[in-house]
């Protein structure tokens, strides 16, 4: 990410086709092109809603457009072959660039030049010579102490033939590795996402209060847990006075061999994980459990009450017929289109003849009167069973995604805010017997800041007396 040190790559004319391919994959143009291409392509998926049922698209687009978009994979574009191809190309590009720069970065970390010579001095910044009237060993002591303040590590000292000494200080050497950290972290995230999609799943399960399940439904089919069950002890939804939701929580237990091993109340931001499987609070609902149904004479006199469990036939008092509570609707559509509220679907089984189906409305007790006949039915009480809707995930790649994310952040921080700084100081006695100091430095990044740092150091070195 450094903008200061030109990137050195061994580019050749590319006459060899392998070299040409290599040069293509390591070119900076490809990186910039792919990043901007992915950005541009991603926009499409935010404008066209993704993964909707096909009939919804027909409401928005012409049939020809739907067919075209469908063929192009635009309805699930982030998994389309062309988007995945772009991502794969990016991964290859990152891998190739990492290999390409490996040697250069490693070379930058080596202590190559320990002495300021003619060639090195050309590339140094703040190259300055200071002369002192003091003896060399006094100067050396003070200078080493001053420079040591900015560079905590031990300097490399080289003895020169003319009796002088050369000091080499450096710090932040390992910040050069930030290139690998940032780029490999992206590959690690990709690897995590891929292994998650191959070896993980997302499932859903509804559990009624008091019930236990050991399997969940996924897109690919049903998954069975052989060695544990999940029990929903209770589910509660709380609301603010305004009607906005306040809290959804399920009291869950994990059972193994009939014994409770974990019990936890999960909420929207607080899931439960067991053996790599995580249970998230996702939805909730109710299903009828049993209905108490009054049998009423046309004149309003109560003949009797039937308690009908859902899915079971019971006798109707006063007649030989049987009834079964078979169906339920939260919002029954009235003939005029109004919301009729909760309704129980009942099947009547006469002694002779075929069964009759009818709807009884909880909020409209007289509704069944319209059927005619001597008696009618009305719902006295309806017991609902609550269930909690859980999302169930297993994602073995998740840990790689988080590892990659942390490395990415760390790498970017190091790349932007740290640099490899080097400082050379040469000390010798000149022909006139004065002590002569030559100082210069380099940094691989943020050279302006380092130049200011060095100016200060040079100023304090000049003041040595």
């Amino acid at each position, binding site marked *: 990410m450094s903008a200061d040190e030109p990137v050195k790559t061994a580019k050749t004319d590319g006459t060899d086709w392998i070299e040409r391919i290599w040069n293509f994959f390591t070119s900076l143009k490809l990186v910039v092109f792919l990043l901007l291409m992915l950005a541009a392509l991603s*926009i499409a998926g935010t404008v066209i809603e*993704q993964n909707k049922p096909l009939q919804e698209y027909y409401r928005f687009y012409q049939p020809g457009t739907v067919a075209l978009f469908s063929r192009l994979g635009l309805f699930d574009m982030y998994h389309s072959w062309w988007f995945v191809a772009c991502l794969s190309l990016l991964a290859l590009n990152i891998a190739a660039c990492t290999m390409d720069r490996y040697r250069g970065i490693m070379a930058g970390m080596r202590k190559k030049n320990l002495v300021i010579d003619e060639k090195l001095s050309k590339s140094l910044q703040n190259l300055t010579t200071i002369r002192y009237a003091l003896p060399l060993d006094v100067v050396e002591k003070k200078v080493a102490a001053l420079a040591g303040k900015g560079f905590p590590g031990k300097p490399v000292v080289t003895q020169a033939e003319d009796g002088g000494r050369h000091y080499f200080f450096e710090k932040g050497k390992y910040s050069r590795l930030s290139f690998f950290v940032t780029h490999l972290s992206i590959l690690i995230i990709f690897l995590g996402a891929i292994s998650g999609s191959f070896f993980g799943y997302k499932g859903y399960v509804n559990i009624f209060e008091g019930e236990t399940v050991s399997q969940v439904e996924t897109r690919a089919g049903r998954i069975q847990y052989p060695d544990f069950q999940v029990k929903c002890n209770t589910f509660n939804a709380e609301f603010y006075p305004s009607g906005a939701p306040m809290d959804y929580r399920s009291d869950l237990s994990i059972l193994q061999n009939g014994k409770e091993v974990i019990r936890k109340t999960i909420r929207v931001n607080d899931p439960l994980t067991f053996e790599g499987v995580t249970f998230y609070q996702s939805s909730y609902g109710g299903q009828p459990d049993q209905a108490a149904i009054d049998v009423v004479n046309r004149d309003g006199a109560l003949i009797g009450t039937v308690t009908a469990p859902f899915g079971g036939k019971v006798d109707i008092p006063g007649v030989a017929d049987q009834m079964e509570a078979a169906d339920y609707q939260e919002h029954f559509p009235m003939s005029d289109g109004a919301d009729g509220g909760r309704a129980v679907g009942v099947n009547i089984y006469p002694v002779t003849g075929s069964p009759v189906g009818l709807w009884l409305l909880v909020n409209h007790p007289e509704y069944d009167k319209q059927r005619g006949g001597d008696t009618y039915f009305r719902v006295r009480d309806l017991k609902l069973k609550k269930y909690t809707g859980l999302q169930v995930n297993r994602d073995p790649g998740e840990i790689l995604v988080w590892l990659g994310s942390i490395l990415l952040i760390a790498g970017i921080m190091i790349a932007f805010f740290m640099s490899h700084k080097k400082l050379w100081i040469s000390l010798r006695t000149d022909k006139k017997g004065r002590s002569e100091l030559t100082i210069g430095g380099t940094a691989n990044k943020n050279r302006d800041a380092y130049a200011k740092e060095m100016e200060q150091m040079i100023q304090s070195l000049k003041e040595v007396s």
Partner: protein
Amino acid sequence: MTNSLLFGISIFVYFFAMVLYVSYLAFRSEMLGKAASLSMLGGVVVETAALGMRWYESYQLGIGRAPLTNLYESLAFFAWTIALIYLVLERKFKIRTVGAFVAPFPFLIMAYASLNPNDIQPLVPALKSNWLIAHVVTCFVGYAAFAVSFGVSFLYLLKAGSEKRSPKSAGSFWDFLPSSSALDEIGYKTIAIGFPLLTIGIVTGAFWANVAWGTYWSWDPKETWSLIVWLIYAAYLHARITRGWRGKRAAILSIAGFAATIFCYLGVNLILSGLHSYGGAS
């Protein structure tokens, strides 16, 4: 409510700051420049009090939550971060002339915020999380750095254009602006501050989504647009490695990056639909 009054005052202070920054550029008077910076600082102080007051008042209502959870609050916080981060960077990089291009944002954003309902609502279950503050703050400070970078890049384009037309014009208006190479460098440095923060914002968002919804990345429009912003600035940073992409092309990428940022922040909520609908207008 006291917080509404304070937010109202901050709109006026930001307005003055904007006028002063533009006058500073027009009349090139150091006095006006100092007044502009002070006025912006005043706006930040008033709005800090407003945000603190709103936070405090939410506790008095028995709700008790950070003021970061609906469109009004996020706009107010966005204006606040832009003003604050701008002042910090103005001091650091000595770029008061950029103020004329950044100062309109806090004012316009606050003015737009004032059109939205500002009652303090309790949190829905999905937002009740410790990740809320970390996620929102990192994203917004990142956005604010990009806003400053936008101002700098805009000024760069003006300055570079003038340098091309008349290379030497001592004492002119153009001479008053920082050199184009300095602007180019500052534009890069502000992005170097924003990019790591955006990265942290995306990662904390993914982590939170995984805890709340059981999926760290679902390609919902907000997530996708934050990735688009990230990709554009990543392209910018890579492009700068070669000398060829400094200057004009870098400035244009930086402006495109900020346009995408604004769309990611506002456009997605107002135009597109998705999981992140808390910040929506309704």
